[in-house]
Every structure is written in C-alpha cells, then in structure tokens.
C-alpha cells in the first residue's frame, strides 16, 4: 500500500512504485490507444477492481434488483483547489453523488466515473485522486463499475474535472420527497454547517486559523439508514452549494409550506463562524458536503435525533426549526436577539468552484 502523510491537513500519498513510465499525463493518455490502456490497467483497475469493471466492456452489466425501484443521479466536480483539508476532488466526487442517491431514500450501489484531465497533470496527483476515490467508495459500500477518460490540451480545463453518476436502489416502503413534508414536522440538521465552503475558501485565500478548518465531505448513506430505522422521515436534502438556506427555500417552495428556524440552534463551529465574520459570509449560505437536512414527523423527532447522535456523521445533529402552514413558500428565521427575518435564496455566487 502507499504511505499516507498529512501536510497542513491535506492528505498526501506517496506512490510505492513508479506507476507508469510517465510523470505527467500526456494527450496520448486519452487517445484510446496504448497509453490509455496502460492508464486503465495500471492506475484505475488495480484500485477500483471489481467483477463489473474487470470485464473492461463498453458498459457494465449489473445484476437485477428484484423489483426495487432505481435512483440515478449525476454530478460533475470542478473544485479548485483539487486537494484541500478534509478531502480532494476524488473523495468529493464520490461523496457528492452517493449523497444525492441517499437523499432519495435509496441505498447507493454503483458509481460510474468520467475524467476530463488537462494535459500535464502530474501522474502522482491522479494517483492520489484515484486512491481517495477508492477509499471513499469502499467505505460507503459502493463499486465503481465503468468509466471514461479524456485528456484535453493544456489550458482547456483546470487540471482535472470529474463526473460521477450513481445508481441506487430505493429502500423498501420508503417515500421521501418535498411532497411528503407535513405541518409541524421538525427540521433536523445532521451537524455543524458551512465547513466545506470555508475550508476551500481558507486554502484559496491563504487564511490561517489556530487549527486547520477541514471540509466535512463525507458519505451520508449510513446515517440515512440509521435514521430511517428510527422513525418517520418525510424529506431529506444535502445542503451543498447555496447552503442550508437554498436547500430550505427549494423545499419550502416545493412543499407549499413555511419553515421557521431558530438562529441560535443552528450549529456552526467557532472557527468557521470566525472565518465567516472575516469574509463577510453568512454560514447559512455556505456549502456543506457531509451534512443533511431532514424533515421528520414531530413525534418521532427526539427518537431520530437520539439515533443520529450515535452515528459518526450525526453526533452534532440538532433540531433547528419546524414546518408551519403560515407564510407558505417562505423560510423565516428568529434572530439571536429576538427579531425576525426572511431567509432568501442565494443570489449569484458567494464562492466560485467549491465542488
């Protein structure tokens, strides 16, 4: 195995053997010829190894799911920087897509991956990204079953872009969606917010804090399993780009109901809050990559919360608000000092290329 070290909170692997004869990615690595074949056999296959991928077919032939409904979701990842504290573009590309599957109340099973690589990307960087994709996928119990690689001229993309598509099987007897949200439902957030966006921003702007702010990038399917077993869940959403406020606004609009939040109960870690103050950002608009918002039946809420607290991804879960028939389509927040304001959708970009 390769050696893992940490530098400024950014994971770094060193390659145990010279993985290929080339130190950097060449255009020819995407040509479909000998070098592409080398890349697949020496870099991708040994890490992602499974029966479906090993067939090296044009597509993966997957087993039947015994009548369970399928969920499919796709997402592209262009984050800059590609390595950041708490993760990298590889782990993010796995977590991001499988979380979208989990938010449909489904168990993520398979991933496909498409790489668009800029000519000149160090092989070492690609290797690190592949390793962390593999680590993230196997930890979440999903397999990478087919893929594609393209290499473009220098300057035509920024180092590496990754697309992943996930396939999942909907959990039996589960209906989760905005349409299921009921008045009096409690709104739970699975932990502290705004960490991913601030981690990326700190690296990009060279901000230094007493300790390094790490992205919260993580797989949420295990947490969702736990929650579903402990009570009635009506809707789930992972508040990624646009943060908690955008996710809640979308759901308020889709459900035709109103939400009321208590500012004081929204968990934000001290350093993240400090960074937000410095940068003039509101944490409820900042991206998360390992958090979920759950709308749960009021009488089940304490039980679900307790179960969440037992799970590594839900230790800091909190009830942050509730659903009301008043002010349909609007999210209202009771401020720390007792005033009230509307929480609107984010307009424009707060931070560029965070995922």
């Amino acid at each position, binding site marked *: 195995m390769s050696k893992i070290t940490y530098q400024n909170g950014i994971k770094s692997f060193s390659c145990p053997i010279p993985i290929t004869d080339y130190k950097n990615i060449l255009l020819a690595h995407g040509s479909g010829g000998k070098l592409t074949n080398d890349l697949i056999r020496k870099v991708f296959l040994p890490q992602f190894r499974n029966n479906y991928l090993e067939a090296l077919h044009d597509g993966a032939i997957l087993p039947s799911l015994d009548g369970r409904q399928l969920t499919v979701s796709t997402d592209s990842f262009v984050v800059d920087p590609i390595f950041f504290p708490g993760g990298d573009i590889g782990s993010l590309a796995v977590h991001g897509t499988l979380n979208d599957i989990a938010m449909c109340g489904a168990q993520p099973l398979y991933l496909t991956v498409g790489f668009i690589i800029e000519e000149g990307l160090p092989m070492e960087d690609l290797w690190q990204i592949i390793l962390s994709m593999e680590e993230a996928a196997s930890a979440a119990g999903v397999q990478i079953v087919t893929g594609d690689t393209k290499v473009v001229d220098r300057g035509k993309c920024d180092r590496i872009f990754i697309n992943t598509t996930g396939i999942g099987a909907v959990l039996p007897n589960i209906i989760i969606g905005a349409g299921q949200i009921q008045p009096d439902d409690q709104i739970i957030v699975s932990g502290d917010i705004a960490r991913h966006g601030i981690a990326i921003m700190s690296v990009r702007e060279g901000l230094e804090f007493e300790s390094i702010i790490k992205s919260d990038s993580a797989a949420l399917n295990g947490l969702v399993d736990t929650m579903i077993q402990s009570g009635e869940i009506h809707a789930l959403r992972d508040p990624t780009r646009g943060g908690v406020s955008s996710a809640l606004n979308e759901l308020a609009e889709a459900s035709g109901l109103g939400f009321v939040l208590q500012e004081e109960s929204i968990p934000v870690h001290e350093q993240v809050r400090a960074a937000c103050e410095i940068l003039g950002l509101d944490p409820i608009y900042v991206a998360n990559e390992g958090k979920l918002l759950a709308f749960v039946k009021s009488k089940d809420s304490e039980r679900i919360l307790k179960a969440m607290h037992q799970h590594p991804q839900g230790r800091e879960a909190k009830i942050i608000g509730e659903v009301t028939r008043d002010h349909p389509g609007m999210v209202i927040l009771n401020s720390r000092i007792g*005033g009230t304001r509307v929480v609107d959708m984010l307009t424009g970009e707060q931070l560029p290329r965070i995922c």
Partner: protein
Amino acid sequence: MKYLDEYRDPEASQKYIDLIHKTISREWTIMEICGGQTHAIVKYGIDHLLPDKLTFVHGPGCPVCVTSQEIIDKAIAIAQEPDVIFTSFGDMMRVPGTQKDLLMVKSEGADVRMVYSPLDAVNLAIKHPNKEVVFFAVGFETTAPANAMAVNKAHISGVRNFSILSSHVLVPPAMEMILSSAENQVQGFLAAGHVCSVMGYNEYIPMAQRYKVPIVVTGFEPLDILQGTYMTIKQLEEGRYEVENQYARAVKREGNIPSQNLIRTIFQVTDRNWRGMGVIPASGLEIRPGYELYDAEKKFNVRDVEPVTNSECIAGVILRGRKKPTECPAFGKKCTPEHPLGAPMVSSEGACAAYYHYGNYRIKKDKRITEDLANE
C-alpha cells in the same frame, strides 16, 4: 466568539429595547449613515423590535451605491484596454454602468479580477511587469488608508505598472448636504463607527451645533445599534444635540492619526459627483500631484462618456433618506439583485439589497405576511 457574541447578547439587547420603548414619547426620525448598520438592522430584525414612533431612514454610507455612473463607465473602459488587469472588490463587479457591468466585460475576455485588498493588486503588478494593474479604489474614509498604503508601497518599491481609479468619498460633506436640504426629515444620526475609527469625531461637533442634531458614533453589532439608538433618542427627548461616542472600543475622539497622515500624503480633497445626489463640493479624494503615475484617470486617457441613468431607479431619493426601498415602484419587480437597476440593489451594503435579501418587507410586525403578498 469573544468580542462579538457579547454584542449579540439577547438579554442585553432586550434591556435597550425596553429602554427605548420607555424613553420615546413622540415620533422621531433618525438616520444610520452606514450601509453596514442598515444591514444589521434588517438582518437581526431590529426594526421589528422598536417602537412604531421611531423611523430609521437609511443613509448614503454605501460606497458602491454612491459611486457615480461616469466612474463605473470609466472603469469598464479601462478594463477593456489591452494589457490591463483590472482589479476590484467583488461588490463593484455587478454594478451597472451605462451599457455593461464589469462582470459582463470579464465574460467578453477582459482580465477583471476580484481582490480582497489593494495590496494584492500591487503584488499582481509586481508579478506581471508587462501588464498595467489598476485597482478600483472605492470607499469612504475607512478604506482610504489601505488604498493610500498601496500607492505608497508601489511608490517606494518602484512599481510603475500599478495605478488606482479613485472614487473616494467623504462622509461629513454628505451629512451636511442632507441636513441643509429644505426637505430634510432627519432629526438624529447614528454616525458610521468605522469611518470615525479613522477620522475621529471632532469634525461632527460643529455640525451637531449648527443643525441642532444629536450625532452618536455607533458600531455595527445589534447591541451597538440598540445602544446608539437609545443614546440618540435620549438626546432628542431631552432636547440635547451633542456628539456622543457609543463605539468607544474602536473610536477615539482624534481618530487614527498615522492613517490620517497617510491619507493626506497620497490624496487631496476634491469635489465629487455622488450617484443620486449630484456634485458635493469637497466631498472626495483624488491623488495628489507628485503621485500622478498611480492615478489611473491620468494614465489612461479615457474620455468622459455621457451616462444615461435609468429613470426608474430612485436611488438618489433613497440615499438621501427621503424614501424607503419598498416605496420604489420597481423594487422587487423590475429591480432585483439578479437584475439590478441601480447600485443599492447590488452592494452588500445597499439599502435596497438589505430590504430585498432579508425580506422584512414581507413580514408584518406581528410576524405575519403582509396581505398583498398573501394575495399574490
């Protein structure tokens, strides 16, 4: 968070809310100068917690909002010159000029970059000796020292490919203009704490006496604003008109002398055209003779373009405190943060953006939605 949570404390806030309710006996109108204060008022819902007798009008203290369209057009013209890297704070990027905004010019291929400090722009100039790096120096007295320092740094280190486009404005002349207007309604001011941290508050003393208005130097956290409001109301009720300092943890009477000296070294006072308010004598800062090399207006021979302002935007009336954003017919309809007709809808300190973003116009004081919204 130390030094911040104390100023957002619910109990202390309630104490001042109660004091204001007890003290106020008649209708008063006070103006908070700074856009940062406007945002705190709506963000924390302070306006919903205070008596109906008190009206806040929102002042001109949003540097982006008061930057004239001519200067924005000039910035856009300079950004389009070959071999220019045009740098600016993020806020200015989406403020509409006559034809375009800076983001549009960027999408067409101009090298426009967002920076967090003018010193970053100087460093860019050092890194790109074959390019001309221009920094859009907007702001009040608060940002002037940093911009002066950037020019000074370029001067000392012999960086010749750096310049600033100055649209610096000064607060006291604008306050004087509001007070001397026949239509003025403002009876007291929350002066801008950060401006005073640089300039001190000596210059407000004759103004308070001449116009018989209380002026309270005020900070930006909810408790600051509540305390500053209480101090202003108390003066009004007692018939006093003095300059008081609520923001003593940051502001000294004489201000920050080294910063003032730096400003005076690089800049000199000039007349300035304020968006929506017109030309105010001696209300701006321009680069002093001797430093012309760093003056983008002199370096680039960009001719004045006759600006066509949008007649539907009532930014001027709002910046003078004559109307509230919600009284504008275009507010939230034709004019939104995605499609702003004027700067106050763009800037993070703009009054229109604050009203729109925090949506308080959509909630009544009893926290229910206004009827017209329910009927939509």
